[in-house]
């Protein structure tokens, strides 16, 4: 897919999504706001996830992703759109959160979830992510001019700082923005669970964008099957990591069986919710696990199918976390749920294509580029 077509489709999807959101707000406002929270959180996470991908590769000394590093770099451009969506939900529909709708909480929880503190924190999380996205991407763009290794040294320092800051802020953000929809329920592993979803989603997006750009000839000599193979390993690994953390949360709550904890699962196993509950496991782990098992699969179109399934699973995962908490009754998927997701996909494509076009498709003067080009997985 060329950048022009990407932009074209981005505009179309975003416009169609915007019309759909408008209709949804008229017909099923509550569900549309919940759908907006799902899509905005997913979009913001994908954007900051691009930076997390770079930071993790940088601090672990991995040079193999350098050849396609411009993809996660450009993905970071999706962060502002996601942040805007989140801000819209928080400011225009705060009543999605029971404690913003008048329910009084006590003790530390009451102080933590006070409106002013909540909004300040949200601004700090998003501000920090945007700042580090800008700083880290800037080192890469600056290296295009002089090829100096000091940009790499700076990227390593920034990445090390960001990994710590991101871990803490994303953990708290997933508490604030998702877990507090059910303020009496808690799970200490919830932040890790959300990180697992974020990272497998980011790897899936990078795989799809890389394959699309390669077909358009944009990354033709640089991106090789060896790179896809290792991206496939990462997707396989983080899909399994997601399953591991999913099980850690579910099993401990099942085992102790304390009502204030198990209520979360009781709600999500009632009636037709149970089907979606197990479908979530299938889409995020079983299907990608089986599809990516062989070496051949990681080097062919199969990896794209696996990535597509993981993205569907990511939406369903967020739907299962957010929707039952915000809306009562049986699951529904209609315009209120689909339109925000379509708009988010459009905005992601649009932001990505614009940012990707603003620099050479490969960081040509990165000292590690040659290692990445001659890489054997």
């Amino acid at each position, binding site marked *: 897919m060329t950048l022009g077509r990407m932009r074209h489709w981005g505009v179309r999807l975003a416009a169609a999504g915007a019309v759909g959101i408008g209709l949804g707000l008229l017909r099923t406002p509550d569900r549309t706001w919940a759908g907006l929270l799902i899509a905005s959180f997913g979009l913001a996470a994908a954007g900051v996830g691009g930076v997390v991908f770079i930071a993790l590769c940088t601090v672990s000394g991995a040079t193999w992703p350098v050849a396609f590093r411009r993809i996660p770099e450009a993905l970071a451009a999706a962060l502002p759109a996601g942040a805007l969506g989140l801000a819209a939900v928080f400011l225009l529909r705060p009543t999605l959160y029971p404690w913003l709708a008048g329910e009084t909480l006590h003790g530390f929880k009451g102080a933590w979830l006070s409106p002013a503190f909540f909004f300040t924190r949200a601004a700090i999380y998003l501000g920090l992510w945007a700042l580090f996205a800008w700083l880290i991407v800037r080192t890469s763009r600056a290296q295009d001019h002089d090829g100096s290794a000091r940009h790499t040294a700076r990227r390593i320092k920034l990445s090390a700082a960001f990994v710590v800051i991101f871990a803490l802020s994303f953990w708290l953000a997933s508490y604030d923005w998702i877990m507090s929809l059910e303020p009496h329920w808690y799970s200490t592993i919830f932040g890790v669970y959300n990180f697992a979803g974020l990272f497998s989603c980011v790897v899936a997006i990078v795989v799809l964008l890389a394959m699309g750009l390669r077909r358009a000839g944009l990354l033709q000599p640089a991106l090789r099957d060896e790179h896809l193979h290792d991206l496939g390993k990462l997707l396989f690994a983080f899909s399994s990591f997601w399953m591991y953390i999913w*099980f850690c949360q*579910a*099993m401990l709550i*099942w*085992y102790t*069986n304390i009502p204030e904890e198990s209520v979360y699962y009781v709600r999500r196993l009632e009636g037709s919710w149970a089907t979606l509950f197990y479908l979530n496991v299938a889409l995020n782990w079983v299907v990608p696990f089986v599809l990516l*098992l062989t*070496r051949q699969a990681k080097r062919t179109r199969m990896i794209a199918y696996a990535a597509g399934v993981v993205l569907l699973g990511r939406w369903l995962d967020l739907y299962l976390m957010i929707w039952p908490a915000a809306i009562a009754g049986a699951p529904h998927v209609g315009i209120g749920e689909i339109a925000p997701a379509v708009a988010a996909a459009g905005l992601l494509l649009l932001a990505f294509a614009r940012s990707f076009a603003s620099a050479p498709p490969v960081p040509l003067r990165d000292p590690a580029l040659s290692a990445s080009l001659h890489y*054997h997985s």
Partner: protein
Amino acid sequence: MSRHLSVGLFDSDHDVLAAARAARSAGWPIVDVYSPHPIHGIDEAMGLPRSRLSLACLVGGIFGAAFILWFEIWTAAVDWPLNVGGKPFNSLPAFIPITFEMMVLFGGLSAVVALLVVARLRPGKAPPFSAAGVTDDRFALVLERTSAPMTAARVRAFLEAHRAVGIEERVVGGEDL
């Protein structure tokens, strides 16, 4: 039946890799390459088929998971039903961690055992090949002279052209290598 071998010793992995590639494209049978560390791309250069070790790992893993799951269900719910915390006897979530661990254990051990069996490695086995330095800082490419055009002199010239630092000719019994 005895086999006539030419052994080229090299100082670097680059050289042995290049020599193996050249030998293969010249159609000369490569008996083996000896190296103190794994060399990226040597399988391809030697024309080795893909390792089937992962298959042994998969089968072992599936067996381990299935076996222990059956064993847990049998012990906890069939042979001696135990009430643990008021949970049902057959409580699948409680069995999953052990199932996972045993899958990893059986998968890993199967791969190791399969390697030992396929490579016919056993305690006390005499080394089939020895050359100074191949467990230290040397790399060896072993070629077999099977046909008339592969005279010892031509193979020697070929190895020298690929920067071999030492060349030996050996005659071994059919089963030795």
